[in-house]
């Protein structure tokens, strides 16, 4: 499914009553089956953008459309959260089934679909564990399975691997790419990690620091399927450099700004 973002702006009121412009007039469309990454320095409003698309936040101006969506009864999106946001009182299986429950899928089918996803994300044998019994990497696999379970038209991922250690992150990146090759979801992937964005995405949307404006959309000229050997590829490095050049000045400003992230 194609996502169209039109002249989207978001202005917050901060605690002292001053208005802070988080997003300024974003125009962007995400194509069918595309893997689009959104990068930017801290405070560029990339999570705000994702939350608006997910229907968890009201934009100040502008709209988000899902092309070809007639029936508005179910959200066409599913979200994977940075802090996992798993329900601690539900087992792995219970967490994965949550979205299906809310859609009124019958218990038998729920279980069947959840079990298939447990296999897909490599959690077989852990179905009855609670989140606190799992490692960070396994928890986020549950998060991904929970999102895929509702078969969303668009998968929204908000820095899904940034709470994980570097090795786990790299392994999960490869796994996510493999899952994407198989399911061909449209993915919007927010990250502050340029390497990660370039390695995974078809295109990288670059946002500026407050107010978040779209600076550029950089296409990634790397073949699919991606593999770790491409991390040394000249085109990979050039693209990373190009994007770093675009946001370096902003990132430096963020470093000395009192409001930080």
């Amino acid at each position: 499914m194609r996502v169209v973002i039109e002249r989207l702006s978001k202005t917050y009121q901060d605690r002292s009553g001053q208005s802070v412009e988080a997003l300024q007039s974003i125009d962007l469309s995400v194509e069918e089956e595309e893997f689009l990454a959104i990068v930017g320095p801290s405070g560029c409003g990339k999570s705000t953008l994702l939350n608006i698309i997910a229907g968890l936040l009201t934009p100040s101006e502008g709209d988000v459309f899902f092309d070809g969506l007639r029936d508005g009864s179910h959200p066409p999106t599913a979200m994977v959260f940075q802090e996992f946001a798993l329900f601690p009182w539900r087992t792995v299986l219970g967490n994965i089934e949550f979205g299906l429950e809310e859609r009124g899928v019958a218990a038998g089918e729920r279980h069947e679909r959840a079990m298939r996803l447990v296999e897909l994300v490599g959690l077989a044998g852990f179905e009855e564990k609670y989140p606190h019994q799992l490692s960070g990497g396994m928890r986020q696999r549950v998060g991904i399975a929970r999102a895929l379970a509702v078969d969303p038209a668009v998968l929204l991922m908000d820095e899904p691997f940034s709470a994980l250690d570097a090795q786990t992150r790299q392994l999960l990146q490869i796994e996510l790419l493999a899952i994407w090759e198989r399911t061909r979801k449209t993915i919007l992937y927010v990250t502050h990690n340029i390497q990660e964005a370039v390695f995974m995405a078809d295109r990288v949307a670059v946002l500026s620091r407050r107010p978040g404006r779209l600076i550029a959309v950089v296409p990634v000229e790397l073949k699919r399927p991606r593999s770790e050997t491409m991390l040394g590829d000249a085109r990979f490095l050039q693209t990373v450099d190009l994007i770093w050049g675009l946001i370096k000045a902003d990132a430096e400003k963020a470093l000395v700004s009192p409001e930080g992230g």
Partner: protein
Amino acid sequence: MTEQRVPVEDRTRFLERKEFKTARVLSLIGLVFLWELLARIGWVPRLFLPAPSAVVGEAVEMVASGELFRYLGSSLLRLALGFAIGALAGIVVGMAVGFSSLAEAVVMPVIAATFPIPKIALLPLLILWLGIGEPPKVAVIALGVFFPMAINSFTGVRNADPLLARAAVSFGAGRWSVIRKVMLPSALPMIFAGLKLGAGTALLLLVAAEMIGAESGIGFLILHAQNIMETTKLMVGIVVLSLLGVFSHWFLTWLERVAVPWKHT
């Protein structure tokens, strides 16, 4: 030059907590033993402090004659009714107030104003309103349980992770789903803490109410035994009350393990 090697020692050793299991058991046994001894050698008149063995003997007799169960029965009924009504009302009100800001604005000032009233002080008023039978006793227990339950449920809902509520909404959950599947389980640990707190309060109010105006119950047994100078019976009443406190705490702890399995696995 001779080189001296000094291995590094763990300097935090004195901070370690040890268990001393036997000391725990011995202290209890020792206390009972000392008490028995004091009573036997007659340092303290039996009228003031009957021996533990005498208390146990009296308890066995009262069980055999069924006398104890008459007292216990009416106490348990009041306790169960009052506790159930107070706890249920407290959970419902606390959760509603925690979830809806309008309910908070309306109810919270009322709770803040009435919470400090010692509930036993309301018993005469309740008797005036509800008559002298069971209703005022049940009502005073319910009131005593209601406040800790309402405040704990409210706090539990308030401390629920807003991210989880948003995650639920992102997967299509509506208001009732969020209350049932996010707020309620989030609040459960606090609710159980409230239940344990409320159980203690309930016991206290039960005894007080039964001493003020009752013809039955453990509180009445204690007061009545004192009037007729039967100190052993009085002691049986106290022991039964403390057992009631211990068992209710055990029961609630067990129930919590069953209802909140994600905290204990």
